[in-house]
């Protein structure tokens, strides 16, 4: 695997807040006319809660998410996703940033961003980055509820489809 280590890719995992301004500054280059940026944020009710609404008496509110990762492998995977995006679409710049540790309500846990000459490619590559990150990167989130309870969010990945990098 060739890691993109030049100026056109930016990949990081950090415990501190992610800066959208820095992402915008990185992505806006003269060669690109279209920039798509996806932000994942901590929401008060999660998907798991929604699914379970009908069989619970109440919906405990989430007050923060806590992320844990297998950092060296997660970074390696994130580089792989970005490399793949560059090979599939005409992309000028791409970034994939994840925050770990505690992420309070409304704050940003992940940013996927792509700059391309045209918008169809920017949208497609950005979507690809966040979709692959969510199914493949060894990162986990734990919900902390307002009542003090907590639980690991059940991932929805399908191991049989993803056991090898070649089956992506």
């Amino acid at each position, binding site marked *: 695997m060739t890691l993109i280590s030049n100026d056109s890719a930016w990949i990081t995992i950090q415990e501190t807040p992610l800066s959208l301004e820095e992402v915008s500054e990185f992505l806006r280059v003269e060669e690109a006319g279209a920039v798509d940026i996806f932000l994942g944020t901590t929401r008060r009710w999660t998907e798991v809660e929604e699914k379970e609404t009908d069989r619970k008496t109440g919906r405990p509110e989430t007050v923060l998410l806590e992320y*844990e990762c297998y950092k060296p*492998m997660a970074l*390696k995977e994130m580089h792989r996703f970005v490399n793949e995006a560059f090979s599939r679409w005409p992309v000028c710049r791409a970034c994939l940033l994840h925050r770990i540790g505690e992420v309070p309500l409304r704050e940003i846990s992940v940013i996927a961003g792509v700059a391309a000459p045209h918008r169809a490619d920017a949208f497609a590559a950005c979507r690809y980055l966040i979709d692959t990150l*969510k199914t493949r990167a*060894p990162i986990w989130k734990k919900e902390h509820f307002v009542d003090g309870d907590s639980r690991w969010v*059940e*991932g929805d990945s399908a191991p049989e489809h993803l056991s090898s990098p070649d089956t992506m």
Partner: protein
Amino acid sequence: MGDKKLQSVQVLLFSVIREQAGIDSTTLQLDPGEAVSAGLLLERLAATYPAIRPMLPLVRIAVNREYVPREHMVQAGDEVALITPVSGG
């Protein structure tokens, strides 16, 4: 000591399976020259930490930071990680 290290496999656990096992890493010893499948290695681990057994069907295995099938042969010096369904993003 040096020989012993060469015969060992480092195993890493994260998130829910880490909490169930009560450890975030452990070392498994191989006999000299032995190689075992990733699947068999999981079985050995579950013998020591039975609380993780219910999760094994969902676990993906990574060896040296790459996903591998369960038939993949693990060797001394490898870093093995147990990856429960991920939920990043």
